């Protein structure tokens, strides 16, 4: 019996039982549906084993959207609990689990896959490549991320969720104060997903440096590709720190080592340092691709070239360097003294300068333009003012003496949501709407799209602006309740209304997808937005090989040059194209990682050893497999191009 007790949830409630039933029913429905429609083979051949960057991108996208809703439900639960004083919708323990999983899911399993989705889909197209440098590694990255996310998501029905905050500070996260397996889930699930991200970083650096079309020098890369390059460099430097920190945390929890304990020589501050040495660059990993998307969208719909291309690139390079020099601003209050705080205060505020350069460059891109407000453009225009509010409050937080008052309060919560939501979420929604016709061959409805953008933007302000006030009035973050006499009620009530508004906005986006699938006209052509860079030179939907003929590039707006100045993009004739074969190894290996992670979390050593062996067996199989890919013949390419109306032959 004792064995099974480990899997019991420490704090069950009707909501959790209901979710268990819901999860069970969904799984059965999916299995039954796939069987009934005989889609198992299709699923396996076309998706689970795919190595096509575009399909991997779409799978990242679907996962990100699903996680957005998972994280969103958590958010609504939190705001509902705080809407009125002394509320009892959630108890302290549940509240702690909810805000912990909310933070982790949103950052690691929503924002990260969202940016990687767009990177996967867009970057190879934008640089005129046929795929990423290591297609199978790319598939493995996705499946590792996916299995990590799934592992994390089953925590609340098997064994209990982590409850020490998404920052998981020790010793609170140690076994002494967090007894359930929740934090094991945190350590292992993030580890598995993080390995996937690290591989993505390496893969995309290689892709961007090695696979650009002829003529595309670094300074002729479109801005989104630039942002992707810099982001991946940050990933490669930052994620190993997380890997090490998580490994040490796991050992503390499972093997009773003392890296972060409060006695036997452990140092709780070491965790905080390692976490933020990764964590601060992580926020730039999220924001830079968003900046890239905005650059593409704003210049497309201002019908103008991007203002200050060079300063855009340099500001990103500088941001990437500075992002590694500011981590201490997350714990000015740890007692490192005036000198250290002063140094980090200055580096922190310095980041505002290159960030400001970007904002002003976008504003100047609008200058003398011919601005057309489409849905992606609307998100970009709404991003500017809201992100500015988030950014300037970041500078306020950077003043370390003043931060003694903001730290750990709702003021901080307001700051980072007002940068992350317009920064990352708006950008991804803009990117989603912008690239949707390229991905699926039809447009999302513009009217519904714009209404949801307005609702989301206004709700963001309604939800988060009041937190500046309640923060300055002494409301600490992560309090599950407060009393009437504190005076926080009104501000939390307004926030709750904003949160409901956000939920409505997101539901409207789903409705838009449904509506457009049903009613939107098909065959919108390859370039529905009259855009500027190479990805719009491919037919929609994009054929597996992307470009029948490798394009020839003259500037960062290759397609625009072709359209306006008659520059010929596709010179030469069609030749047979070498493509990689699909492979089941990444999916199988990641599934074994799931079992490995689950065994590790519950300290089940025999399955752990077996799955470790199986993982190495997969690697060995992969290394000895003789697979040189295949060729698509000239006839086949011609046929496809003709069908899709692509390159004229």
């Amino acid at each position, binding site marked *: 019996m004792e064995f099974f007790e480990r899997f019991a949830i420490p704090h069950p409630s009707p909501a959790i039982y209901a979710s268990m039933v819901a999860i069970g029913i969904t799984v059965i429905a999916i299995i039954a549906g796939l069987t009934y429609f005989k889609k198992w083979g299709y699923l396996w051949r076309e998706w689970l084993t795919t190595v096509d960057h575009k399909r991997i991108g779409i799978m990242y996208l679907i996962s990100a959207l699903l996680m957005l809703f998972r994280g969103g439900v958590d958010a609504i639960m939190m705001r509902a609990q705080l809407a009125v004083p002394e509320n009892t919708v959630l108890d*302290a323990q549940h509240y702690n689990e909810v805000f912990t999983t909310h933070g982790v899911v949103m950052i690691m399993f929503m924002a990260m896959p969202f940016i990687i989705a767009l990177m996967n889909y867009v970057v190879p197209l934008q640089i005129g490549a046929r795929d990423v440098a290591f297609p199978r590694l790319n598939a493995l990255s996705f499946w590792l991320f996916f299995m990590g996310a799934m592992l994390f998501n089953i925590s609340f029905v098997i064994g209990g969720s982590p409850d020490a905050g998404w920052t998981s500070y020790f010793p609170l996260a140690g076994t002494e104060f967090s007894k359930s397996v929740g934090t094991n889930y945190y350590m292992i699930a993030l580890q598995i997903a993080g390995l996937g991200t690290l591989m993505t970083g390496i893969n995309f650096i290689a892709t961007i440096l090695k696979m650009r079309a002829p003529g595309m020098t670094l300074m002729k890369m479109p801005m989104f590709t630039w942002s992707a390059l810099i982001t991946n460099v940050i990933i490669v430097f930052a994620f190993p720190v997380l890997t090490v920190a998580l490994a040490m945390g796991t050992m503390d929890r499972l093997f009773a080592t003392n890296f972060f304990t409060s006695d036997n*020589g452990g140092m709780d501050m070491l965790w905080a340092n390692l976490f933020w040495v990764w964590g601060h660059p992580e926020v730039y990993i999220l924001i830079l691709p968003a900046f890239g998307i905005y650059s593409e969208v704003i210049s497309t719909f201002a019908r103008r070239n991007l203002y200050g291309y060079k300063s855009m690139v340099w500001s990103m390079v500088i941001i990437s360097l500075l992002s590694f020099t500011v981590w201490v601003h997350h714990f000015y*209050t740890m*007692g490192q003294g005036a000198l250290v705080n002063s140094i980090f205060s200055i580096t922190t505020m310095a980041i505002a300068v290159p960030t*400001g350069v970007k904002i002003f460059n976008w504003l100047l891109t609008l200058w003398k333009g011919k601005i057309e407000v489409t849905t992606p453009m609307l998100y970009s225009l709404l991003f500017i003012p809201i992100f500015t509010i988030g950014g300037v409050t970041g500078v306020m937080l950077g003043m*370390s003496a003043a931060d*003694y008052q903001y730290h*750990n309060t709702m003021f901080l919560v307001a700051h980072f949501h007002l940068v992350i939501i317009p920064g990352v979420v708006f950008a991804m929604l803009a990117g989603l709407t912008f690239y949707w016709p390229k991905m699926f061959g039809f447009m999302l409805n513009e009217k519904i799209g714009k209404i949801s953008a307005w609702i989301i933007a206004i709700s963001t302000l309604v939800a988060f*602006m009041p937190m500046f006030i309640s923060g300055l009035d002494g409301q600490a973050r992560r309090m599950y*309740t407060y009393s009437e006499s504190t005076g926080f009620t009104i501000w939390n009530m307004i926030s709750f209304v904003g949160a409901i508004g956000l939920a409505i906005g997101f539901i409207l986006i789903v409705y838009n997808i449904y509506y457009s699938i049903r009613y939107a006209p098909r065959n919108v052509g390859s370039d529905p937005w009259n855009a500027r860079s190479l990805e719009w030179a491919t037919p929609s939907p994009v054929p597996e090989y992307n470009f029948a003929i490798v394009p020839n590039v003259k500037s960062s707006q290759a397609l625009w040059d072709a359209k306006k100045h008659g520059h010929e993009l596709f010179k030469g004739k069609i030749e047979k194209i070498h493509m990689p074969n699909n492979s089941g190894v990444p999916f199988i290996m990641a599934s074994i990682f799931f079992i490995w992670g689950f065994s590790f979390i519950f300290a089940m050593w025999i399955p752990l050893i077996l799955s470790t062996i199986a993982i190495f067996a997969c690697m060995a199989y992969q290394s000895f497999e003789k697979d040189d890919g295949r060729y698509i013949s000239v006839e086949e390419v011609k046929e496809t191009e003709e069908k899709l109306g692509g390159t004229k032959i």
Partner: protein
Amino acid sequence: MRFKWAILFFVLTIATVLTGCEQMIVLDPKGPQAAVQARDIILSAGIMLFIVLVVFGMLIYMLVKYRASKQGDDYEPPHIEGSPLVEAIFIGIPIVIVAFLSVVSVQSNYKVEAPPEGYEAEPLVIYAASSNWKWHFSYPEEDIETLNYLYIPTDRPLEFKIYSFGTISSFWIPQLGGQKYGMADMVNTLHLAADVPGEYMGRNANFNGEGFAENTFNVKAMSQAEFDKWIEDVKNTAQPLTEEKFTELLEHGHLGQMTFTGTHLSFLPPPEGEHGGHNHGSSSTNNDHDDHDKDEEHHHH
């Protein structure tokens, strides 16, 4: 012009936030350190509001002037690479602002990390230790200890020695000054002072598990004479704090307010000096409690 309405909405929201300032406790300081912080907050908020207005202004201008609907069909936007002069302005002004704020920030750092200036009296040393989810305040000179409440004299520097019996906590009395972490393996020093008698809210600001929301304490500032009288009363009426009793207190979750004579420092010394795990900074000043600072070695119990 929907955009104008949107911008108006943004500006109004900010204005509401600013007018809400009056009652916010962080901006209603009752001591010198909180006053420094409140001044920094107002100053930086003002400058930042200026930046926000510049950005909003430029955005409105661009949108009003360069909307496609306002232009002829044959208008072709020009190709503009960028101009060194314009870019110099947009880099230069932020650099000046950041440089100015840096100077202010550095000065304030040294102020809040040192005993407040202009107070003649010797600092009153109070050890503030957190345990799940309580606060233990030891007054070593007075040789008394309180649980979950704090009496302090006004017009006298206060030197809090902060640490924790377990998770990381953060000691925070917003109206007297910003917070500092309490950790199990080192003692942090926070210099505060109260100018105005009154009752203030104090709490742990760093999440530490189930009882976090209620992890608060009451602070009462009073004249030195009243404070001395209170000490006298405590000495005459309170029970002594025994090791056994203290261990019992540590075990409990939430508890109410309590008062003792004697302190736990005698039998359970704080993690400083030879009992310290480590320290990593200069948060301490020249004070006889801190001579272990030069001692780089790690000692463990």
